[in-house]
Structure formats: structure tokens, C-alpha cells
């Protein structure tokens, strides 16, 4: 099916190579360019601010986590940490107690020190460094499900006004969201795979679907690398949409040119 072969590129892999190389080029260009890529403010951010506000009003703590960090500093964890930093700033500003359960995987041993640093820093930025208490960031366990039960236990004993869970999570996120709902906390979650999205959408008050959490993180940090990633992904979505639309038109006139190009 391949349209052309170019030695020494393996047959049928030209398009893949071009698309992969293009990601490098676009991302690097956007990261180094003078103008920061634009990322819109996602509704999830408002939901988070409302949730923290409600906790403050009720005089209850906020529980926020950056996830289980299964493979260390992955895609979701980086976003989760940025969101945690934002929540920490909001809490510091309003003198609301913040609890951060940490742990859950081998990767979490490595991520935790960075998370502590980030939260401490957030308090310092708001000039409330004295309010920061590392004991409010307990390491619950290095094992996934024990972290889940520990997390749920923390919700039961502290009865927070809101619970914000970003970053990578797995099956046990469902249990945590249910317990959170049971104790009456506003529950905001950011599931990372589609089976969990549907389940958590039912158990939570607000659910950040897909890359919303990542986009929220990029928006908050305003870091060129994170903004550029979101922009590059969008460009690829546009490329995808364009190819599909073009494909439809050509299919209608019985041509499979796009299919052939993609198989090249």
C-alpha cells in the first residue's frame, strides 16, 4: 500500500517518522519562541477555587493529592503537582488547613520530597511559611491499595470540606471518591483512563476529563514547556481532524489517497 519507499527508511514507516519528528520540531519551536502559547482557562480551575472557598467557609480542611505517581514524574503527576501548588496557595491565602496524602507506588518515594518542597514554597510565596506543617503531608504507604485505604481513612477521620485528587490514579480512586462523597466533601477528581472517567464522573462533584487537568496545570504554571505541550497536542488534534475530513471527502469520490499516505 505504501506510495513510495525512500532508502534507508523502512518501508511503510515514512509518515510515522515524519509525524514523530514534527512533534520535536513543533514543541521545541513553541518552547523557545518569544511568545508564550495560549492555553485557555478550564472550568476545573473555578471548581477548585469554589471547593477551597467552601472549606474555608465551613472551617474544614482541604484534602488534595497529586496522585499515586506510578512511574515517577509522568505526564499526569507533573500536572498534579502544579495543581497541588495552586491549591496550597489558595489554602495559605485563606488560612485553610491543607492535608496532602502521599505515597501509593514505587515512584511515589521519589516524587514525595519534591511535593513537600512545592507545598512549602507555596506557603512561603503567600507569606504564611509558619503555617506549613509537614505532618499534614503523611506518607501513607508505598503500595497502591494501602494508599487507597489510608487515604479513605484520612477522609473519614478529618471530614474535609473538599477533596481534590489530580495526577495518576487507578481503580481505588473510585473507593476514595465514594468515601469522600459519604463524608460530604466536595469531590474533584481527574481520572486518567476512560473506564475510570465514567465511574468517577458519577462519584465526584466535578471531574476533569482527559487532559483538562494537564491544561489546568499548564495554565497555572505558565511554564513554556507545559504550555508548548498543550499547544502541540492541539496542533496534532487539528492535523487528525483535517486528515479525517479530507479522508471523508476523498472516500466519497472513491479515492483512498489519505489511507495510502498514512500507510507510507
Amino acid at each position, binding site marked *: 500500500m505504501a506510495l513510495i519507499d525512500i532508502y534507508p527508511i523502512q518501508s511503510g*514507516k515514512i*509518515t*510515522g517518522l515524519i*509525524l*514523530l519528528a514534527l512533534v520535536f520540531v513543533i514543541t521545541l519551536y513553541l518552547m523557545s519562541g518569544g511568545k508564550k*502559547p*495560549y*492555553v*485557555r482557562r*478550564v472550568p476545573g480551575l473555578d471548581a477548585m477555587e469554589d471547593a477551597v472557598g467552601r472549606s474555608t467557609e465551613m472551617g474544614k480542611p482541604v484534602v488534595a493529592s497529586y496522585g499515586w505517581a506510578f512511574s515517577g514524574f509522568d505526564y499526569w503527576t507533573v500536572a498534579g503537582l502544579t495543581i497541588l501548588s495552586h491549591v496550597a496557595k489558595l489554602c495559605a491565602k485563606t488560612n485553610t488547613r491543607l492535608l496532602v496524602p502521599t505515597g501509593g507506588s514505587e515512584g511515589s*518515594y*521519589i516524587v514525595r520530597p519534591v511535593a513537600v518542597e512545592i507545598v512549602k514554597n507555596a506557603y512561603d510565596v503567600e507569606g504564611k511559611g509558619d503555617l506549613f506543617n509537614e505532618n499534614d503531608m503523611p506518607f501513607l*504507604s508505598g*503500595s497502591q*491499595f*494501602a494508599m487507597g*485505604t489510608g487515604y479513605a*481513612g484520612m477522609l*473519614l477521620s478529618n471530614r474535609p470540606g473538599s477533596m481534590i485528587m489530580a495526577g495518576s490514579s487507578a481503580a481505588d480512586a473510585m*473507593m476514595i471518591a465514594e*468515601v469522600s462523597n*459519604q463524608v460530604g466533601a466536595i469531590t474533584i477528581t481527574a481520572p486518567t483512563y*476512560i*473506564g*475510570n*472517567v*465514567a*465511574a468517577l*464522573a*458519577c462519584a465526584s462533584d466535578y471531574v476533569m*476529563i*482527559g*487532559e*483538562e487537568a494537564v*491544561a489546568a496545570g*499548564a495554565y497555572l504554571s505558565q511554564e513554556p514547556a507545559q504550555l508548548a505541550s*498543550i*499547544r502541540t*497536542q*492541539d496542533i*496534532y*488534534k487539528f492535523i*487528525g*481532524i483535517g*486528515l*479525517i*475530513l479530507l*479522508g*471523508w471527502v476523498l*472516500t*466519497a469520490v472513491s479515492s483512498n489517497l*489519505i*489511507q495510502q499516505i*498514512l*500507510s507510507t
Partner: protein
Amino acid sequence: MVEFYEFSYTLIAILASWSMYATLYGKPSPFRSWAESSFIGFTMGLNLVVTFFYVLRTGWEPFLRGNWMPVMGIILGLLMILRLFPKYSYISRVPIAISLGTNLAISLRTTIFTGFINQIQATIVPFWVPGNLYQSMLNTTISVSVVLMMTFFLYSTEFKGPLKYTSKAGEYVLYIALGAVFAQTFMGRLGLLVGYMQSITDPAWKVPYTLSFAVIVLAGTVVLDRYGLLEKYSD
């Protein structure tokens, strides 16, 4: 007649399963704590043993046949532990770098095809399949839904102009999908529940033990709760 081997592990297994189900009581419980620590401890022990044999077969044995590279994996793996000691953590950056670069490469080099290019190819389908109304409906729905939802997941642009409508439509389509996905996910969890219940009730000799252990664990939990001891005796 059941062998003692099977009988003994079945009894422990039934006790462990009801202890785990004690989670549903909604409070910390010593039963749950016991089952959970057992789960973590035994799993790690198992992983240690089985992984050791994998490393032995794949890292050490090729070395005996003259291939020195896999054995480097063992050495670098040992250096990785230094990551936990701040003073020497810089040494661990070598294995981390090699592992990251290689893992990224093996996953990215193919995922661009299976996760992107092939998905687009599968979306470019004829809307009308002659003589097959169902397939035509399916093709149309899939293609249109994919495009609509892709516009809903755009973050670097405001939803203005046509995007305002397509993204809204995408949101509706997404919710239809989530309903279906929820049901499928539920089926899986339910299948596991029923399948597991079968394994502690079939063959029939297990039934009395299953039911009596259920009563024991439930009664134990309620009594401990009555005296306020649940929290004290759990972890």
C-alpha cells in the same frame, strides 16, 4: 474427600476474603488491616522471588554464554538503589537515563502508529455501506463522534465560531459514551465479584465455612464497633 492441602488454604482464603470485605463497613477494621498487610507482604515476597528468577535467566545466563550486555542490566539495577541516598544519588542518574531513553524509544516508535496514525485510518470509513444499514449507522456515528469529541478536547483555543457548536455537541456525545463505558466497567467488576464468590462456594463443601466466616467477621466488626475498638486495633 478433600485433601488437607486444599482444605487448609481454602479456610484461610475464606477468612481473608471476608476480612477484606469488611472495608464495606465504612470504618477502619483490624480484619481489613490484617488482610491488607498480608496482601502487601506476600505480594512483595512473591514478586521478589519470581523477578529474581527472571533476572537470573535473562541477565545472568546470557553472560555465561558470552553475551555481556544483559548482565550490565543487573549492575545498573543495583546502582539504581542509590537514588534513595541523597549523597550518592547522582550515580543513579546513569541507569535512570539509559532506562528512560530506551523505554521512551520502544514505546514512542510504535505508539505513533497504533495510537495515532492507525486510529485516524480507522476513522476514515465510508458513511454508506451498500446493503448494510447497521454498518452505515455505525460508521457514521463513529466518524462524526470522533471529530466532535476531538474539538471538545482542545485547550489552546477559545470555543468561538463553529468550535462553539462542535465542542458542545462533542460534550453531549461524550456523555452518551460515558454512560456506555460505565456499564461496561461495572460489568467487569461484577464479573469479578460473582466469579470470586463462585470460587469460595464451589464445590459445595466450602459453603458452610464461607457462611460461618461471614457471620464471624461481621459479628466481630459490629462488636468491636460497639465498644469503640475498631480504630484502636486497626492500622
